[in-house]
């Protein structure tokens, strides 16, 4: 007899440890009436669907889901995990993403039943530990950013940005002035302009100058009383510190605008300098970058937003508050903009961040920034001569180099360098961002990579540059799949198994 259904328990086809075939989808592994589920005996009358719900509401046919055994379920997803690179497998110098190693202690903290099994509607009297944690985390984040109050609701950075823009809007409206514009630098991350639009503002872009910093003259020309504020990240996305930040702050405040700090690059300045001290009014943090919340293949993260005193009354609510020494509760600010999440934000991610904060402490956080900046400068210096370095000056936690010469001389693009690096056993840097750098390769080693790792990474990048040739277009060769046809995916869209 022949067997047509692929076999999950069978060929370890997709585990790169054996063979090179694709892993079938869970749908191909499905066999009618096979089951993995078990349920406890409820001891209830076995009412039928018809007994429970009026017939007109009942589905004619059940929704078809994969029918597999627990064994096949585990084999399938374990194999898929073997087709996935991750920080735990090696370096991940993805610029702007701060792919640092996440201490395992945080996983254990976030697995405590006392956190995971608490219902979000449970009253404060039953969730004192949770609220105390949120208050303590919030206080620490205010200290780290130099701000006055914080909301932990935003589930990611982009949500934090929008929260900040809505706070800006609420602030100006309360002062009865309707402003229409928000300024961002041309090096800004895409979420910034996208959030500006959602915030109901119009994006005004200021160019960077030859230093890679905000062009002050250009800024001056766009600043007027129609400007609600400016969004900056400092260090900026070139990894460069905006040296004129104090002056910029003064200029923006001068016209009644507010300064928004995109905290994606906070890792560079922990314990060294603070957005609040630079003059920022609103700050979002990416706890999934700076505070070791693992990225989970794309999320979840957490994007708390901290603000100066004058914006505190507008924060989303409810806010966790300390009522007295050992009682905690919730309070909604008088002029709150409302809610940015169905509940209290990505709570378990906040647990991880708090554990990370306690483990590092003030001394550890400063050391994190120092090592992150040391590593990034070391890499830039090592790559000098092999890659173009458009802004070859002391950088902070990341550096941006360019493959434009490689492209001119060998037709090898940033994307080719990235794919070649995969072959060499490293994850690739961020490519083609920031947009103002041609053939950009944005490298953020993070502080958790050792000198040996940096050396190996630099050696690989240099070897790639030296050996650059048309053959690089065929890279990567030793990965679970070869170069993927992205254009084809968009041309004939197949977004579900059923669409094939």
């Amino acid at each position, binding site marked *: 007899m022949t067997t047509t259904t692929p076999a999950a328990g069978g060929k370890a086809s997709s585990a790169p440890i054996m063979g090179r075939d694709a892993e079938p989808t869970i749908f191909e592994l*499905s066999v009618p009436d096979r089951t993995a589920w078990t349920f406890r005996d409820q001891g209830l009358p076995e009412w039928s669907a018809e007994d429970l719900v009026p017939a007109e509401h009942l589905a004619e046919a059940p*929704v078809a889901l994969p029918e597999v055994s627990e064994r096949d379920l585990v084999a399938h997803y374990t194999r898929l995990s073997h087709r996935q690179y991750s920080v735990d497998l090696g370096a991940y110098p993805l610029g702007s993403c701060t792919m640092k190693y996440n201490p395992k202690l945080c996983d254990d903290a976030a697995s405590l039943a006392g956190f*995971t099994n608490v219902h979000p509607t449970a009253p404060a009297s039953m969730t004192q530990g949770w609220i105390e944690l949120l208050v303590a985390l919030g206080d620490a984040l205010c200290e780290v950013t130099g701000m006055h109050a914080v909301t932990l609701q935003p589930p990611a950075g982009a949500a934090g940005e929008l929260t900040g823009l809505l706070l800006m809007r609420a602030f100006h409206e309360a002062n009865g002035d309707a402003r229409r514009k928000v300024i961002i630098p041309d090096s800004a991350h895409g979420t910034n302009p996208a959030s500006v639009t959602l915030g109901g503002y119009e994006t005004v872009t200021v160019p960077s100058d030859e230093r890679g910093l905000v062009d002050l003259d250009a800024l001056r020309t766009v600043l007027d009383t129609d400007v609600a504020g400016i969004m900056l990240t400092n260090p900026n996305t070139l990894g460069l510190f905006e040296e004129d930040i104090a002056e910029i702050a003064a200029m923006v405040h001068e016209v009644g605008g507010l300064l928004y700090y995109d905290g994606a690059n906070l890792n560079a300045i922990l314990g060294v300098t603070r957005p609040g001290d630079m003059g920022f009014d609103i700050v979002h943090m990416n706890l999934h970058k700076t505070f070791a919340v693992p990225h989970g293949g794309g999320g979840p993260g957490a994007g708390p937003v901290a603000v100066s005193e004058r914006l505190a009354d507008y924060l989303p609510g409810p806010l966790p508050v300390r009522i007295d020494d050992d009682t905690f509760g919730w309070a909604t600010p008088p002029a709150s903009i409302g809610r940015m999440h169905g509940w209290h934000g990505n709570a378990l991610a906040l647990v991880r961040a708090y554990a990370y904060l306690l483990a590092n402490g003030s001394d550890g956080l400063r050391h994190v920034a120092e090592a992150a900046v040391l590593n990034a400068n070391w890499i830039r210096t090592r790559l000098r001569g092999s890659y173009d370095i458009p802004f070859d000056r002391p950088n902070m936690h990341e550096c941006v180099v360019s493959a434009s010469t490689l492209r001119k001389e060998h037709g090898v693009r940033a994307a080719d360098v990235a794919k070649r690096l995969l072959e060499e056993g490293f994850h690739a840097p961020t490519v083609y961002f920031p947009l103002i750098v041609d053939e950009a390769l944005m490298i953020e080693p993070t502080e958790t990579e050792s000198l040996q790792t940096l050396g190996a990474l630099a050696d690989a990048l240099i070897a790639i540059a030296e050996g650059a040739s048309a053959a690089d277009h065929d890279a990567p060769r030793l990965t679970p799949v070869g170069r993927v046809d992205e254009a084809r995916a968009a041309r004939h869209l197949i977004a579900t198994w059923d669409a094939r």
Partner: protein
Amino acid sequence: MGHYVPHTDAEIDEMLRFLGLASLDELFAVVPEALRLAGGLDIAQGASEFDVLDEMARLAAVNDACGPDLVCFAGAGAYDHELPSAVQRTAFRSEFVTAYTPYQPEVAQGVLQVLFEYQTLIARLTGLDVANASLYDGATACVEAVNLAVAATGRSTVWVSQGVHPNWRATMATYARGTGHHLVEQPLLDGVTQWPTDAGEVEAPGAVVLQYPNFLGCIEDVAEARRTADLHGALLVVAFDPVAAGMLRTPGSLGADVVVGEGQPFGTPLSFGGPYLGLLAVRQEHVRRIPGRLVGETLDVEGRRAYVTTLRTREQDIRREKASSNICTNQTLIAVCCAIQLSWLGTSGLRQVALRSARATRATREAVLAIDGIDPVANAPTFREFAVRLPLPAETVVERMAEHGYLAGAPLAGEYGPGLLIAATERRTAAQIDGYASALEKVIR
């Protein structure tokens, strides 16, 4: 101290020398003196991982967690479903946990394929064509759906049923401060939405939004909402309970254009409300407006099946201020949990969860309504949750029931009037339900 910085002092010196620097401080020479933080951060010094875990355990122990000592009858959008060991242990493998968004598909086929499977599963549950690779949670998914509908119709008035979760409506209202969308709430009558027959003076709606089953647990008439939407050429947005797909007709089959929902019931613990999972699916015609990441199947150079994030031009990093949404980081790992849980359930298991939850809810409802002094808030048919009026404040009842070992439910307020929202899942047994009812009887005396 920086436990997680590998550098030895010797290496730091070596690296500084290589950079021609004399000290780590010099790395920050570019930071103006005036901005440097004097004296360091005013937070405690670092602690050992064991001291940290002790402190975390202390905080966790202070909470009343659901379990044998606090049997959960609360729902309101967060449900106490079974979490099989196989699903949890597989979903949290470190390759999934510590990867970034799959920007390099050649080394991210694992996450990409799970997301492709997830999109397929959610499309099936909703009865629509395409699902995205996750949004933050049910509330923000609802916002994204409205934004999509407004963009598609060019009309910014949105009719929102008061049967939609109050926190979700609050979130929609907050986002509307920026988008300027005009949200018009439509009241419930005996538990189900009363749709106005005409828009009256105001602009006709670009979207009609309801929850199915709704916040009070009542099963809305989606077909009627469809007719209302058609009346105004609006898109129909349905916020659904994915568990209901095990018994009830899918929103897609009832005419929804966009379906959103909260994915927590499949594979995610209560977690004090997060991280949860925003579900969103659309009809094929809206795929180019879909917010967030979308994974598509394609081929690699050697013609092998491969997956990649696609239709990227919708997204913020390319489209910038014209993007369909500002979302970047999403809830991928929770989507992985959801996909694996749905595969663990399979066709029959999904039906079992729905059926067993509905049975437990029915039994609880009968036992609770048999107590005199307690009346139903509405009489419309319910699926897995129901609301009651109590002779005393729900908050008081919840506090007292906790002493008996039960999380009684979620207190109601506002437009619903005072009351308690009660839910029971497949985890609830006859014994627990009896115990709950008799405790409740005592408590309200």
